[in-house]
């Protein structure tokens, strides 16, 4: 295990655990999507970026920025809505931008693909050897502009690496239930070079992404590459995800939902089979949500990386101490003017 990869994964995870705490305290508003579970993918890819490379992100945008080296304080300050945040406190969690790192995000599903294609075009024209990376969810591959970009980036032969993080979730729907064919088949149909990796294994991601990135850098008109990485979604769609709450504590948070469903089934409409299917589907989705969100799971990439460091406990301990300090320091600085409470 490369210590850098573990360090970066831990930085991303620790940063987001801090964010989750800020969210719980009511200091962060709106839909806070974490990337917990994606750290191996993020670290394996983003550690390979250089100055002049572009980075296009979706709604789980903090971890890649953390790994990319964007200072933590302005990210935190943005999440807190402060004037010295990345976007002056006016952007927010789905709109983290760092011009210095040519990195942008979007809360519109699918938008990271055209953005990435554009960053790749600029790289090709202005900074030969530079590339762009776009992260996208598997659910977003059903969005028109994303599919269009599968064509556009190919015919323009752009130095673009698309990293598709496949957690098989689109909010509370299994993506596979609303998606035909596989992401890889789609990318292949548009002539992309493709590969798929276990997205909980940072070393593998690093190797496969590295190979693709090298190819992209080597040619003037390489044409794009597509890396599919499967990994879990450890904290639901966003913090406070009702499905997670309902499935973890069905007698509390799930009560209302289930009660309504049962009441509704008692009424007219739909055949018996349809109704039964409805109940079963609900139950199934909740069970999967419960399983997927298991932090103790062997699929937790940070846990896995930590285990891979057992041969090197000194380094591991040092990294953990340093990262802990870094995040604590950033958090303290971020809250310095705000010790009093959760008021803005």
């Amino acid at each position: 295990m490369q210590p850098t990869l573990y360090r970066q994964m831990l930085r991303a995870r620790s940063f987001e655990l801090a964010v989750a705490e800020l969210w719980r305290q009511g200091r962060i508003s709106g839909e806070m999507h974490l990337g917990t579970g994606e750290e191996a993918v993020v670290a394996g890819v983003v550690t390979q970026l250089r100055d002049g490379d572009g980075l296009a992100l979706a709604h789980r945008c903090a971890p890649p920025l953390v790994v990319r080296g964007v200072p933590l304080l302005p990210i935190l300050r943005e999440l807190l809505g402060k004037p010295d945040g990345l976007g002056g406190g006016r952007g927010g969690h789905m709109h983290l931008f760092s011009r210095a790192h040519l990195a942008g995000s979007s809360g519109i599903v699918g938008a990271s693909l055209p953005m990435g294609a554009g960053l790749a075009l600029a790289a090709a024209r202005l900074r030969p050897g530079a590339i762009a990376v776009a992260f996208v969810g598997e659910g977003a591959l059903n969005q028109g502009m994303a599919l269009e970009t599968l064509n556009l980036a190919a015919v323009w032969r752009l130095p673009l690496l698309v990293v598709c993080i496949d957690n098989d979730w689109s909010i509370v729907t299994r993506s596979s239930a609303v998606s035909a064919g596989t992401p890889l088949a789609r990318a292949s149909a548009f002539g992309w070079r493709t590969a798929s990796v276990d997205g909980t294994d940072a070393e593998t991601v690093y190797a496969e992404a590295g190979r693709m990135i090298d190819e992209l850098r080597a040619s003037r008109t390489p044409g794009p590459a597509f890396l599919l990485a499967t990994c879990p979604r450890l904290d639901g769609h966003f913090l406070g995800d009702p499905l997670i709450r309902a499935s973890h504590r069905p007698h509390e948070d799930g009560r209302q939902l289930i009660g309504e469903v049962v009441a509704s089934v008692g009424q007219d409409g739909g055949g018996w089979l349809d109704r039964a299917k409805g109940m079963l589907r609900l139950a199934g989705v909740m069970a999967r949500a419960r399983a997927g969100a298991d932090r103790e799971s062997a699929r937790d990439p940070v846990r896995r990386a930590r285990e891979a460091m057992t041969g090197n406990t000194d380094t591991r301990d040092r990294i953990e101490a340093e990262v802990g300090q870094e995040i604590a320091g950033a958090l303290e600085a971020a809250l310095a003017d705000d010790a009093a409470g959760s008021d803005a």
Partner: protein
Amino acid sequence: MTRQAAMPEYTFGKAIDAAIADAMAEDETIVLIGEDAPMLRAPLFARFGADRVMAAPISEAAFLGAAAGAAMGGLRPIVELYMVDFLAVGFDAVLNHMAKMPTFTAGTWPCPVLIRAPSGGGYGDGGQHGQSLWGMLAAIPGLTVVVPSTPATALAHDGPVILMEPKLLSAEWLEFLGSGGRTTVTYDVPAAGATGDVPQSHAVPFGKAKVCREGDDVTIVSIAVGVHRSLEAAGRLAAEGIEADVLDLRSLRPLDHDAVVASVKKTGRLLVVDEDYCAFGLSGELGAVVLEAGLSPQYARVCLEDTLPYARHLEDAALPNVERIAAAARRLAARSR
């Protein structure tokens, strides 16, 4: 000014849900289409099954376009968007297809699609998730644009209708998108919006404004959250001796010209309160409406001027709030008419 989000028994969103459930039970041609629809509308899914409550991929352009085609084929689709902001990726289906059916078919082929779209900010979700956009939608000939004072009417309608559901007035959306089980956040939710003024489930004609409060000194015209803010402002103003007429337009297309003109004729002063963008929107249109009627009121508007900021305090300041409304009304009242 901030208070805890209430969780009342029967809310705004639930009233629409109930109207939809009734309509679906009555009319088998109604299908409901939306991302996560089987989960978000679990009671309907369990009751009506997967053929009528259909999960959609994240493909707004395709499923809005398909809804138009399905309506041509004899169904009455209800399409749920997660937020009206996302209509931008499927805008063509509305602008160039649904809304143009009356002209292209010489009125022979209706397109009974109902789009239900949560709208607006106030819970700190940033500029891509807090827009209202009803101004640009109301500009489109052939489209009906309503705020759900009248869900039953919208469901019975034969043309494309977009029904906005201000998230701040919807306890369900606010819990889903904002609170997520927390008790550590607060929103400036008008209590009457989430409970008191629950939409009627019986049909009320479109294009009829509702006079929510009467007064002789100034007319305040608004829609959605703005109505509640205006009423609260009117309460304060009354204490200062300024009496306001407060109108809830309830639909923007059709737009109730008569009600606005009648009130402004009486008060000689018009204040438009709109949480949508200021320029080229509702506030402008109402300016034209009164001028066309030959009136020359004192006029002001309190709207959203720029992209909605994320920070909660900036957001609350950018959206029309009671302070800004009351201040503008005071300034108007001080001018002679």
